[in-house]
């Protein structure tokens, strides 16, 4: 499983998101935020990151978290700084909006 995090680099968002990922997913999960590559495209962030997630699932290239040097204490081993080449059967994209307008989509490489 690969996860494209909301990962805005705002302290509270990243802390809560990292804790949720650490609680819910096995350590081999690959989780990264691609906002370091694209910037925060605000209202377009959900669709931009969903497309990046689909490309990652299709190509096997999982982009890391650009411009992150040191991980916060809340981050488990799931949170990755470096990109890797690996095939994954499922990839998930998480986007969170002001006031709890949140959406998470899971894509599969094959029909479930």
């Amino acid at each position, binding site marked *: 499983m690969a996860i494209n995090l909301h990962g805005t680099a705002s302290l509270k968002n990243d802390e809560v998101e990292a804790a949720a990922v650490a609680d819910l997913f096995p350590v081999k999960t690959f989780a990264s935020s691609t906002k370091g590559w694209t910037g925060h495209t*605000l*209202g377009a962030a959900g669709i931009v990151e969903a497309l990046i997630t689909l490309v990652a699932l299709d190509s096997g290239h999982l982009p890391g978290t650009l411009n992150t040097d040191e991980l916060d204490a809340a981050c488990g081993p799931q949170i990755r700084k470096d990109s890797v080449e690996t095939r994954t059967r499922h990839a998930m994209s998480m986007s969170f*909006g*002001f*006031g*709890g*307008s949140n959406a998470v989509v899971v894509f599969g490489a094959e029909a479930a």
Partner: protein
Amino acid sequence: MLRGEAGLLPEALPRPALTLLPANERRRAPDTVAISLEVAWRACQDAGVDPAHLPTVFTSTHGDLAITDYMCATLADSPDALSPTKFHNSVHNAAAGYWSIATGCMAPYTAVTAWQNSFGAGLLEALVQVHSEQRSVMLVAYDIEGKGPLASQSPSEHLLAGAWVFSPARTPRTHAAIDWEVARRDGQEETGVHSAAALALRGNAMHQCLPLLETLARREAGPVIYPLGVGQVLSISNTSFYREWIA
């Protein structure tokens, strides 16, 4: 006033008190939030619906022009001094977000814009949701005045906000029944306004909400025509009138 039977108010109304929000949020809330939450609250009260379970569509041409001007000026002059609160409030869905926090609403909301067609686009989104989901949806439309150099590119004057609760069937609180359709644009002109009150607000970027308000207030059938961009219009007809508005 929208019926054209009364002139303008002698003086400007004060900014809404915004009692819906906790005191600290109330002080920090920008004008966009103050006016949109006020009309949203009044629409829910009028319709007798619980905002905690009501899906909403917020539409604004420019979002918060004052904060966008602040963001541009601060990023140009002293980017490190950018206020995190202002950044937080700069997003297009800020008003919708504050509404969902204030009301504890867990129903879906969305925040749309489509430049000069923003009201028609928001109205279409709300009506499609009412039709496809067969549940009530509130539309909230607002724009504030332009500030600084941005005002030359994104002109808008005054504060203007309107809110409507649309339901799939008539309720005891319903004011009017409407028919709507999306049609090919074939020479139909965008509907104008007549009352002194509506004419005074034509400089606001959300002035497109005024013809719908005016025809409802005047109990006219319409249709009210909203261009939707290339080659299409949204046409709204008031087919029946029920409950009167309280003046």
